[in-house]
């Protein structure tokens, strides 16, 4: 086929698709809808946790990254920083001991704030997942039915806070008016909220494989992944009275201490066993009982033979 023909065909296809689906007009958001979210991380973070934040910053066009928070700074200064930056939500990634990640998600300036413990963190870069989505497109925020109408009030509040952060307002200046990915939050029986992020592949998109729905959509995971456990809900912005504290939460410090204690127990057992052994070896236990037949074959002067010699 000649190049001219190819070009003509390509043009025809382009005009067709444009005719079929016009680029949606961007509805300009009023200032109230131009919500911004401040994201910042504490000093002493590892690359893994930083990568999680970077991923979310890349996925959510209305998130604005701020510089790291010093250890000496108090958490409640974040509310001030967010207000100064014109944000009405804030995400704070608190890393402790280079191993534990706590996520503070709060509404500014009035609160409330939810503090999560984040586990099973896997960044986009680390997971080799084939999904991809537009930078700046809006994502669906999906919750499973555990967050629905009859759910306990703390879960409803958590849903509101998470929606406020993960929902890109329509017409946000930095967003694109397409919906091609979904943030999914699912609650398991242990009270952990699992976060997954998928690309939506529609029926006409040519990707093969995977399970398609009846309407022909398919999801391809993009990453990142993590699981969140609600620790506490505070009334104020990054502090204030506790409205909810999760009794099912287990501190990672306590888990580590328990593991260490068990290891220590093993050592203590070994030491006591060794002491007992030494005592046994040194003491009376070691002597063998007297053998009654010990001198049966012992040579003794024979009176009869002596008599013969003489």
């Amino acid at each position, binding site marked *: 086929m000649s190049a001219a023909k190819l070009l003509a065909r390509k043009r025809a296809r*382009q005009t067709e698709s*444009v005719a079929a689906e016009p*680029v*949606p007009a961007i509805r300009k958001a009023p200032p109230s809808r131009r919500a911004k979210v401040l994201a910042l991380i504490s000093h002493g973070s590892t690359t893994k946790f930083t990568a999680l934040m970077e991923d979310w910053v*890349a996925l959510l066009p209305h998130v604005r990254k701020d510089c790291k928070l010093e250890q000496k700074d108090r958490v409640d200064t974040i509310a001030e920083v967010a207000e100064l930056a014109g944000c009405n939500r804030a995400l704070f990634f608190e890393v402790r001991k280079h191993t534990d990640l706590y996520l503070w998600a709060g509404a500014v300036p*009035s609160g*409330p704030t939810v503090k999560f413990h984040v586990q099973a963190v896997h960044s986009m*870069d680390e997971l080799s997942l*084939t999904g*991809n*989505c*537009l*930078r*700046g*497109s809006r*994502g*669906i925020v*999906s919750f*499973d*039915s*555990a*967050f*629905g*109408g009859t759910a306990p*009030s703390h879960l*409803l*509040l958590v849903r*509101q806070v998470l*929606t*406020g952060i993960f*929902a*890109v307002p329509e017409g946000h200046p930095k967003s694109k*008016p*397409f*919906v*091609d990915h*979904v943030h*999914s939050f*699912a609650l*398991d*029986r242990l009270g952990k909220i*699992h976060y*997954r992020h998928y690309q939506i592949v*529609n029926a*006409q998109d040519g990707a093969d494989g995977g399970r398609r*729905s009846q309407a022909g959509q398919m*999801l391809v*995971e*993009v990453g990142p992944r993590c699981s969140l456990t609600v620790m*506490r*809900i505070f009334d104020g912005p990054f502090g204030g009275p*506790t*409205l*909810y*504290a*999760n009794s*099912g*939460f*287990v501190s990672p410090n*306590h888990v580590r201490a328990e593991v260490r204690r068990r290891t220590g127990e093993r050592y203590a057992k070994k030491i006591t066993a060794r002491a007992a052994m030494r005592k046994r070896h040194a003491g009376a236990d070691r002597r063998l009982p007297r053998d009654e037949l010990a001198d049966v074959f012992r040579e003794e002067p024979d009176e009869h033979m002596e008599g013969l010699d003489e």
Partner: protein
Amino acid sequence: MVSIEDEVRAQRPYKEVNNTAALTQRLDEMLADNPSNEFRDTLCIVTTEPIQLDDMDDDLKRELAFYTNAMQAVQAAQAKLDELGVPHQRPDDYFAEMVKTDAHMARVKTKLIKQQTDAKEAEERRKARDNKKFGKQFQAAKAVERAQKRKASTDAAKGLRKGRPDAVSAELESAAGSGGFGGKRRRTDTGGNGDAGGGKRFAPGSRDAKEARWKRTHKDKRNSKESATDGSGFNSGKWSAPGKGKVGAAKKGSAKQRPGKARRQQARRK
């Protein structure tokens, strides 16, 4: 099974706080405060079904549960958007920057390809190993078959010899003996078959050839009981002063001792 987490939870329970009234009030305030709480603005969907998770440790099942739940939400959301008349699908010819860069996607691709090829190669290796295993059995069966054939032909030749002149029977015998019935000609040690390395070569399948394969080709590096006490290789005179040791003494007396340099040069000039 009780996990460590469960044990710790039982040992040091956290004090539960659940101020439902305050939580509900807060929730109402948030909903009232937020002007953009319509579906159009948040794209928030709560599915009608909980995730089906019986076994949290089964990765595939867990991911499938999340997938089906998210899929349900996507369908609901797209239906709602269509209802509201909000276009949401990206046109085919709309190209823009993606979250993952091309380099990142290429890296993912190479990684996946490598995984596939690795799996394929492992499968091939396994097959080859199986072939080798069964190949040995096949070879053994073939050797037995060949021996039977040879025996049968020899017997036939013997039967023929009875009624034939000597010349013919000799010919047949030689044919049978040299394995003229499909097998390779057996090489004998005297037939000049010693190779350059000096090792013996045997007809394949013969017992000797097998033994040769089992034998070590070189000495063991470590001492055995015998070799440790064996002093036969020790040359006491080798490093001793000339005249003292055996070798030195012999050298001095022998006629074959090498002449000095001057003498050698002189001899060359002649």
